[in-house]
């Protein structure tokens, strides 16, 4: 089985976001970069699947600037993936562009039958939760997002995914498919020291967007006029004992904020 995991490098959740001088993007120098947290679940599921399906290979693909994205790919290799492909791209990645680049890379690698593709359910930078569905549409494969349980025989894949209001649905996908991992799917392993050493020697192929016939126009969506959230007015503290505090709060919510 061909197993692909599409990952993205994103600012760490503890990173403070600052803007660049003309507010046309964030200040990328002020950021600590990590693998997108949901992508760790995707990598873990791929490695688990590989061990249960003899003769499988796990390939990690990421689109992003070469100078930093290589690190995220090495992390995934250290977790246990076999090889990696880096598609050198800009700091800002529109979902349409990323999905097209991933689809073309997978097509170039060979056929898409007997293929399992994993992604995270969303990247925590631009929060689009779009790439997995777009990738599936490009490759004409079925997809499932927000997946918390995964089983496959190769011919048939059964997943449990979260839908609205805490409900779940169990769906079955026929043949090759794209699955977007949610947190509860598994517990991602840490890269071991021998894993990290081995990862340095694993194959990492580099390609350019132009090799795939992709240009920036394929992005179709971009951003301008970045803003940090407006400073909230200072908090109004409510003093006293619990009964008085509760009374006062309810009165403020009803009469002053008018939200109740």
């Amino acid at each position, binding site marked *: 089985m061909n197993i692909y995991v599409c990952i993205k490098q994103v600012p760490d959740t503890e990173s403070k*976001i600052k*803007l660049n001088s003309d507010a046309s993007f964030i200040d990328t120098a002020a950021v600590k970069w990590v693998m997108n947290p949901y992508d760790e679940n995707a990598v873990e599921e791929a490695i688990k699947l590989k061990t249960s399906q003899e003769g499988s290979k796990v390939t990690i693909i990421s689109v992003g600037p070469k100078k930093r994205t290589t690190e995220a790919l090495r992390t995934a290799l250290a977790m246990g993936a076999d090889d990696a492909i880096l598609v050198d791209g800009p700091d800002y990645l529109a979902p349409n562009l990323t999905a097209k680049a991933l689809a073309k890379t997978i097509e170039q690698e060979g056929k898409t039958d007997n293929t399992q593709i994993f992604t995270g359910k969303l990247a925590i930078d631009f929060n*689009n939760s*779009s790439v997995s569905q777009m990738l599936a549409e490009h490759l004409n494969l079925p997809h499932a997002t927000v997946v918390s349980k995964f089983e496959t025989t190769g011919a048939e894949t059964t997943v449990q995914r979260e839908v609205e209001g805490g409900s779940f649905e169990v769906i*079955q996908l026929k043949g090759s498919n794209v699955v977007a991992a949610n*947190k509860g799917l598994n517990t991602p392993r840490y890269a071991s020291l021998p894993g990290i050493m081995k990862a340095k020697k694993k194959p990492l192929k580099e390609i350019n967007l132009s090799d795939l016939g992709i240009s920036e126009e394929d992005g179709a969506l971009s951003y301008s006029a970045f803003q940090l959230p407006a400073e*909230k007015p200072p908090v109004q*503290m409510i003093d006293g004992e619990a009964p008085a*505090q509760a009374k006062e709060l*309810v009165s403020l919510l009803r009469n002053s904020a008018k939200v109740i």
Partner: protein
Amino acid sequence: MSKILVFCEFNNGLIKKGALELLSIAKNSGAEVMSAIIGKGAQDMAQQSAHYGAAKSFVLESDDFSNYNSESYTHVMADIIQQSGAEIVLASSSMLAKDLFPRVAVKTNSAVANDCHELEISGGNVTVRRALYAGKCTAQVDFKTSGPKIILMRANQLPVNDADTALSSEVVVITAPQIDLKTLIKEIVKGTSEKLDLTEANIIVSGGRGLKDKDSYYSLLEPLADTLGATLGASRAIVDSGWCTHGMQVGQTGKTVAPTLYIACGISGAIQHIAGLTGSKVIVAINKDPDAPIFKKSTYGIVGDVFDVVPKLTEEFKNIL
């Protein structure tokens, strides 16, 4: 006149509030408004969408479409968009819409922006902003596509017009496509709660470590949430401890929310949690620790023990609601 298509989800015989907000803003802009309604009971929803401004409704009424299936819905939605000639497609940013529209965007040569929180439409121009980094900053969305602009708006951001029951809509019947589906829905396991999803909720009561254990999380917060008709939320710490499911987590690695009122009980306010709730209109924090970072981001703050304050608060709300 620009053409705007609004995708209307419905539940229990009513179009959801998020879609009504979008029909209203589309109508107020003077555009030609159309609605897209799919599923069992869709026929009855067409006239409801007319009361809020849809002059034409694309309707697929079918038992086979009572549950969402990404493949068949993609076909139908792309078909409706093409038939409608819409330049702008609006939908509430629900879990269903977020799953569906990226696929539809590829099929219709368009782009999609989800979780938008600001929307202005005037003439044929549309101005949209959305939150990035789970709310750590916002930016204007610039579409550079030949296809329609697909905009998924967060619910509770826009006013709803009064229904005008004199209005009616021309119904265009859509037939179910004959496709060999590779996606099958086997089972739907209903959650215990019939409440609105966190992403659509108008009021959220959320809890953290300060509630000590799972039992007190539910025994303290459920009565408060029930009184307010609120949805329950949780911090990452207590989701990781297994008190709550991941679907209840608010924050950068959980859900980004935008309610009118967010009540944080025993939550200290880690940066990744705060990032998920900055879209809230009013934030209330109740915490023992006067230095908890959550207070800096709150509208109202109470320094006190959640075990004392929350029951009193529930009582006070019961008195007035």
